[in-house]
């Protein structure tokens, strides 16, 4: 999980061009939207694509999305669950 969180942080920084942000600037619990990193709806789309393309997890339900994308820990848990259920 640790490694996945580390990787996810890097993925987020790259995908969203967060040039002034490094992995140490936020932790797994930092809110991604509104407060914390202050991401917006366009960033959300990018993260959904990231989850789908890189991690094979497709999240279509808006409520589930808000839940999964609330912080890096939730994203990592979702990916891990998906991996476990797919064997």
């Amino acid at each position, binding site marked *: 999980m640790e490694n996945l969180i580390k990787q996810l942080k890097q993925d987020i920084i790259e995908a*969203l061009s967060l040039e002034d942000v490094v992995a140490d600037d936020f932790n797994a619990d930092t809110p991604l939207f509104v407060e914390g990193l202050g991401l917006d709806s366009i960033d959300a789309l*990018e993260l959904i694509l990231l989850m789908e*393309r890189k991690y094979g997890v497709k999240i279509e339900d808006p409520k589930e999305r808000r839940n999964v994308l609330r912080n890096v820990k939730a994203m990592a848990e979702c990916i891990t669950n998906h991996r476990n259920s797919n064997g």
Partner: protein
Amino acid sequence: MKAYITSSGVISPQNTHDSSGFPAAVNTFTANRLTCTEPDYRGLINPIQLRRMPRIIKMGLAASHLCIQRAGGSSPDAIIIGTGLGCMDNLEKFLVEVIDTNEHITSVLPFINSTHNAVAAQVAMLLNNHGYNVTYCHRGFSFESALGDALMRIGEGEAQNVLVGGIDECTGDFVKLNGYHGAWKQPLINLELASTKTAGTIAGEGSAFFMLSDNPIHDNCIAVEGVHTFFIPQGAQFDEIAAETDNFLQQNNTGRDEIDIVLLGINGDIVSDAGYNNMMENFFIPGTGFAMYKHLCGEYYTSSSFALWLGSVILENQSIPGVTQVLPAAGRSFKKLLIYNHYRNTEHTLILLGYGGI
């Protein structure tokens, strides 16, 4: 229908963003592609928004910010922009990803940014501006279309202040693709551009924004008195160019003999420059001054926006900077300056400037 330039903001391959006057030092390049000298965008644009902006949007926001600040900071009544290529960089990025990944794209942002009006939209968002907002994308007519629309907007009484911009970014793919058509010279010193008698030119880019107003803010304000475009698909003959120019001047109550200085889009290409040479030799009266600008900014679709800035600086200072001069003007005071440019001899444009001070 005329309007007054009350401020400008220019990002170009020259040191033009620091102040609105002619730069003290001219940048020389040994290249066939000139790249902008850019400000530190962090001082001008919110870093949170800055992060995912393609370069062209940064150039547009920064130049428009400088222009608006210098005009006193008020939001304009309209924002009208011309760009020949739009956000080509992001368009290419999205296109290549669609092709390379067989439609399994990983990022949607380049698609959003690739709409041609992205710069105008971002400027409006930054200013929370709800005014008229249009983007023109028509090669060598892009900037003049925006300028003409701005003049009409003011003339209609629909706007008192209009932010007008011309912006194009040079991308690697653009240079490569046009290179196959022999568009570019071998790398050379840019200041020597006009003296080469060979084919091709040098690529350039820039972002130039102007605040046009219905009232001059001081006596020496430069007026944009008229804009004219003509499209001759098979390539224009000299007499056609002459007729169009005469017509345009006449419509603006001006004769050839009243033009003190002509700023020409000379770009070093031996075929393209024939039209400019003819104009210099045969059209205007002896003593008319001539200047050029593309050796400073390169060739790009909206380069006439750089010319508009240079033309206004020439009139404001009542002198032609040596590095731009082709032939000196005989007069001591300059009232009228004409900008003439063409793209591939099919798209021809004329802008008439007047000096308010005399």
